[in-house]
């Protein structure tokens, strides 16, 4: 029945209107939805990819950026295998909110979560407010991986999700090779966040 080897949860977060839904739509459906309405609550999509012969199922949770959905969004952090924090390169404000989002991640997400900082909308070059190096430096400061994308032009979108799938798969395989730590990683489930050491029998 289960036709995949690994299942990973990828959660997208970030201010309202930075293009989270468009990124997901571009990746899972292959098109850019113009005039996308604000997401209500949480949406989710599935995409199965093949990584070195293994079927990997990505469960992509697209969260609403608006403040009034915050408590719903927060409940998904803990079980995420990867987090994509998105900002809009044309919006200083969305960049300035990043520390707040980082705080949320530290508060609710697991310690082992793979996190990406993504600057979206690079197609609007003339409106750009956040230069690439500023985003990159921010990502480095918080030990996040960094990419700039355009959901509209499909720039780096495939790359973003593919590299996440690759890294998570590599992580999972690594844990399989070291069975004494297997109980700290549940395939198809969540990354536990119990403090380190508590699970070592």
């Amino acid at each position, binding site marked *: 029945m289960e036709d995949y080897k690994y299942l990973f949860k990828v959660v997208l977060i970030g201010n309202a209107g930075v293009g989270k839904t468009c990124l997901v739509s571009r990746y899972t459906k292959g098109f850019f939805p113009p005039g996308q309405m604000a997401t*209500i*609550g949480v949406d989710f999509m599935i995409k199965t990819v093949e990584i070195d012969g293994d079927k990997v199922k990505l469960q992509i949770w697209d969260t609403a950026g608006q*403040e*009034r959905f915050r*408590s*719903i969004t927060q409940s998904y952090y*803990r079980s995420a295998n990867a987090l994509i924090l998105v900002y809009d390169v044309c919006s200083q404000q969305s960049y300035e909110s990043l520390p707040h989002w980082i705080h949320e991640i530290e508060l609710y997400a697991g310690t082992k979560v793979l996190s990406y900082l993504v600057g979206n909308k690079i197609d609007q070059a003339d409106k750009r407010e956040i230069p690439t190096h500023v985003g990159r430096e921010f990502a480095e400061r918080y030990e996040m991986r960094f990419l700039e994308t355009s959901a509209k032009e499909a720039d780096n979108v495939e790359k973003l999700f593919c590299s996440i799938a690759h890294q998570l798969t590599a992580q999972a395989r690594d844990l399989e090779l070291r069975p004494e730590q297997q109980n700290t990683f549940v395939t198809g*489930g*969540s990354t536990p966040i*119990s403090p380190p050491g508590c699970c070592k029998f």
Partner: protein
Amino acid sequence: MATSIVDATSSASMDSIENLTELDEIKKALEQLGKQEVIFGYSLIAQFSHTGFKSSQNFKFSEHVEQELKALLEHQDTLESKMNGLHKMLPNLQILETDSRQLTSMISFTSTLAENVSGKVRKLDLAKSRVVECSQRVEDILDLKFCTDGVQIALQNEDYEKAAGHVHRFRNLDETVIRISAETNEVPGGTLDTSFKQLYESEEKLKNIVHSKFDAAVHCQDVASVERFFKIFPLLAMHNEGITKFGKYLAAQISEKADNNLKLALHTPENDKRAAVLFADTITLLFEGIARVVEIHQPLVETYYGPGRLFGMLQILQKECDRQARKVIEEFKSQRKYDALVGDLTPSFFSITCINPRELDVILSEIALISARAELYMRFMRRRALGDVELAIQEVENRKSTVAEVEKFWNGCELSRLVQELINVYIMMEEYFMREMILKAVSMDSSEEGQQTSSMVDDTFFIVKKSVRRAISSSNIDGVCAMINHACTVLEQDFREVLYSRLRAGFPSGFDLQHAYNIVQASITQGKLQSSDAEKVKARANFLMSLNNAEVTCDYCKALKDNLEDEVSKLFTQCSEQSKAKLESCLGDLGTVSGRFKDVVDFGFSQLTTSAIKPRIKPVADAFLSTSHNITEEDFSNYEANDPWVQNSIVTLDNMLSTFKNSLTSANYEAFVSLVTTEVTAQLEKAVGKTTFNRLGGLQFDKELRGLVGYLSSVTTWTIRDKFARLTQMATILNLERVSEIMDYWGQNSGPLTWRLTPTEVRQTLTLRIDFRGEDIKRLKL
């Protein structure tokens, strides 16, 4: 050349011969002719021989020609018969030709005839359609006259329906066509023109009247008149105005009723039965009121305005609903000291104690109820609007944009935003409530005499279930998912940690449990207890209880998931595929939580093995070592009477198991017995390896082993023989008469027996028999 000469002479002579009359002359001529003939004959021969030579040269060629000729000649017959046939047909052809000529002339005649006839028909058609058009126009003009007069009279009689009917009829006339005929036949400013003018004037007048009368009716609360004039709007092609005016009128009614309801609610005494859900009740009244208005007036709109107009009216009603709902929710917030609660909630989840969970409980239930009512109401409105759209637009493709507009409107309306905000806070509060209550349950953990688990497990699951079920009752899918996620976190993280930390304390060792119980019993009767002993006893009981708690939690998690699955499936009827998938995914995560508690149980047992099982089994194995298995016949029969080892061992094991039996859940007890068995076999195997046997000693061991297996089988429900497979096989080996006898059991002769011992182990076991010679064992081919 010769012939030409001959010819010349002969022709000359021939002429003369015919003219000859004298016999002599004739004779001479005959003679001459004879001579000539001879010469001619010679030349002929010469010539012939010449040509003969040439033809021999062409002989081959001529042969070929001859063949071709032959072939051609063969065809001659068929060709001839064909020619004959053709000859016969010749006369027929002539007939055909004349016939066809006749036919063409006939056809061309017919076609001209037909053309003539159809031309006439066409002309007739044209004439007829013109007549129809003409009569239509005449009718229209008559209608126009009729309408003009009718409107005047109806207006005079204040029969506005009739007047509007006339205007509606006139509106349906093709004005330009009438005007064309007017231009051709009449001078400008004729009757037609005035009629139009009059009609337009009347229409304007009527519109004004209807507007003012409608407003007046609304002002006087004259429901009948309001509805009367509402029906006139569409006749005057003022659908939108009608809908807007009527919608506003209904909205005003809703507003008035809602204001009254809210006032009433605010004056409800605090001890009222419904006081706890006062605002939920108020907002429910609002929703029900609007639903009733829609229910009553939808047929009216559909009948008089046609399909596709309802959405406009619902939008106006929704705007009013938004205003009223906001009022109620604002009142709710201020009366329930909502903002203060939210403020207390946000900074940190654990440190605050100022919020009373009981107070929260009440508010949470009310928010869930408000959300559920709002969801139900918005579903109703959406369904009505979409139903109307479906009627108005038949093609699914064309409908899409309108359907999207309807969805967008209700997704974006203020009510849905207000509810989303409430749910946002609800989730925070509910999570806090769940956590706080579980903390409380853990801190108040207690157990009664004879119970295997403590109160906190039941309490915790009761609280989780209560919280998630309340979330489900709100009908908000995202809220349900969020609460399921939080339930997973609280169980997997916080509750697991509680159980875990209790097991980490370990099972105090170096002290016999049975002994401890005796002391407790004694001290209870004597009324005093040495503190250190008492603590150890308590710690052990706690440890076992935590182990039981963890084991039960595994099952409870599964039960919780199944239970919630049932509850959630009730929501499925009203939600999209996408929402269903979301709920299922979150529930699936809850299912995996169970596995995380299995780890805790395993950890507990590993603790128990080191501190309780191993030390207790060791004396048993030691006792085996100290019992000689190199025995005489006399010893053997002596053993029969006074068992040296196994009876004691069984008593020891039985004591140990029975002390645990009552303190462990049945699943844990089974696991415990399994661990004990594993330990017994492992240690006994080691002990056997250090013992020497003779034939009778082997027999004795076999007996002992049977006794042990018999006992352990009697205390478990599953078969333990498998765990004893290696030992039993060792006993078999130690029981052999001769070394070579092993071959009766090995290899091809093993039959149903599967050897768990490797050949090396078999050899090693054989060497334990002191009466077996090493060379014999070495010689074995295993």
